[in-house]
């Protein structure tokens, strides 16, 4: 169907086309509007004239002409805009265009979206909207904010970028330490949303691939920035394991139970190369440690080999020196349970700020598992119930329900057994 083909083209190429338009016209709203109009004309003409050979090139050419029309209509002097191509490309010209000729400006667009002048809570949303082409509705759902709030945040961010004169440039090396940190944090937030979805069929399915592309571009452009290389490695390790994250019933499979034979080896090899390059710079950092934790897992050859819990725990200890936050501590507790036992792990989890974690499903799932292992079945069931009440994705829900069922059995059998 032309409709779904168009949706797919918009999702796949939207980021690149919008980035190229934004870089040319220096106007995010104009780029977005022109792209939306190009999608509208595609919806009209593709079913009639057939699908173009190169949908991205088609969309870009049409959007570019729409943008020029809009500027003319607005009566803006074409101060920043080069002369319009004359004569305007015909439909046939458009058909033979080549998407490879569209400049890849996504990286520039990322630096714009993640500029320190943009409010931190808008950066990831803006990047997901413009670079990854997610709908406002999908982003609002991912960040657990009402859609109007998110839309307002995006409008404010775009207005700030336009009015404050944020440049459409990748900054010079002197600004990298400050700017790359903002870009990486933003991409981390964006990628975490894609990664949470184990099945890879939810609203974030499209942009896991996008994240692989973007981090490759970032690592190419900044080959001497170890944290950039490490983040590119991390995304590859995590994506390599995607085929093993669901079992036959569609339930999530925990990392330690995943069959390494299902992991995508080429991605792991790429990731290792990136992480080695990062390590050679001899400037340690939190993302290198996080990637190293992934590397420890991905070095497991098969299920007969014991899981690398002791190395994982040591790496989490090192990571705490860089990033002592409660999510790192929670993840570390999972390794503590395996190395030092569930009682010790539960003590550490219960020392964390339960109020801040109230709506964080993984917190309740980890606690539930530890309680179950300590024979405190009733409390485990209650903790599973809290995790389930937070609307986990289908794969996580199935897994949690199964674990809850086991905890429930445990309470019954312990009640039956005397003393």
């Amino acid at each position, binding site marked *: 169907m032309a409709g779904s083909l168009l949706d797919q083209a918009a999702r796949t190429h939207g980021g690149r086309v919008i980035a190229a338009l934004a870089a040319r016209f220096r106007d995010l709203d104009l780029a977005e509007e022109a792209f939306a109009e190009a999608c509208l004309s595609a919806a009209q003409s593709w079913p009639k004239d057939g699908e173009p050979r190169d949908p991205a090139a088609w969309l870009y050419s049409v959007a570019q002409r729409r943008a020029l029309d809009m500027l003319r209509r607005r009566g803006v*002097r074409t101060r920043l805009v080069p002369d319009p191509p004359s004569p305007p490309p015909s439909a046939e010209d458009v058909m033979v265009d080549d998407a490879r000729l569209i400049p890849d400006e996504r990286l520039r667009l990322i630096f714009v979206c993640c*500029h320190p*002048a943009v409010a931190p809570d808008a950066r990831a949303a803006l990047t997901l909207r413009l670079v990854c082409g997610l709908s406002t509705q999908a982003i609002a759902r991912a960040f657990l904010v009402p859609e109007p709030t998110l839309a307002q945040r995006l409008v404010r961010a775009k207005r700030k970028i336009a*009015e*404050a*004169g*944020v*440049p459409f*440039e990748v*900054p010079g090396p002197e*600004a990298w330490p400050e700017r790359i940190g903002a870009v990486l944090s933003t991409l981390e937030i964006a990628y975490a949303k894609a990664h949470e979805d184990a099945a890879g069929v939810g609203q974030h399915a499209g942009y896991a691939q996008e994240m692989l592309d973007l981090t490759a571009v970032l690592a190419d452009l900044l080959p001497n920035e170890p944290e950039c290389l490490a983040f590119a490695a991390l995304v590859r390790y995590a994506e390599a394991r995607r085929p093993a994250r669901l079992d036959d019933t569609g339930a999530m499979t925990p990392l330690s139970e995943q069959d390494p034979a299902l992991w995508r080896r080429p991605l792991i090899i790429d990731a290792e190369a990136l992480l080695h390059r990062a390590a050679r710079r001899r400037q340690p950092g939190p993302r290198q440690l996080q990637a190293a934790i992934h590397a420890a897992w991905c070095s497991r050859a098969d299920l007969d080999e014991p899981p690398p819990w002791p190395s994982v725990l040591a790496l989490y200890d090192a990571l705490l020196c860089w990033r002592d936050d409660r999510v790192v501590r929670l993840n570390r507790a999972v390794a503590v349970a395996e190395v030092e036992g569930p009682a010790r792990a539960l003590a550490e989890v219960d020392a964390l700020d339960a109020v801040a974690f109230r709506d964080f499903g993984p917190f309740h799932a980890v606690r539930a598992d530890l309680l179950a292992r300590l024979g405190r079945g009733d409390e485990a069931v209650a903790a599973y119930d809290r995790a389930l009440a937070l609307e986990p994705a289908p794969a996580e829900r199935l897994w949690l329900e199964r674990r809850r069922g086991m905890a429930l059995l445990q309470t019954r059998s312990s009640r039956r057994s005397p003393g």
Partner: protein
Amino acid sequence: MQYALLIYEDEAVYRDENGRAWQEIIAQHEAFAGELAEKGLLRGGAGLKTANTATTVRRTAGQHGLHDGPFAESKEQLGGFYLIEVPDLDEALSWARKLPMAGDGSVEVRPVIDED
């Protein structure tokens, strides 16, 4: 684009006995302004006398009221500004970073309304 660099500092930093801190910062500002002028980026600016010399006219519901002192009572006060013409925010920010300051303080970078 034109940007105003608005300088907020704690004036107490310049209130030493022999006025040396003040003389030093003035010399540094002259050098800073000189560099901007040499590059053709300086469009204006001024240093302001201390906030205790300020008188504020406040309009509330059509009525004017006067009071002694600056608009906002805070430790850091507006002490002066530069008006510069640079291509974009990043360049304005890099000048803001270079702006001389004796102690802690802030430089607010604000784009100026475009007249065309």
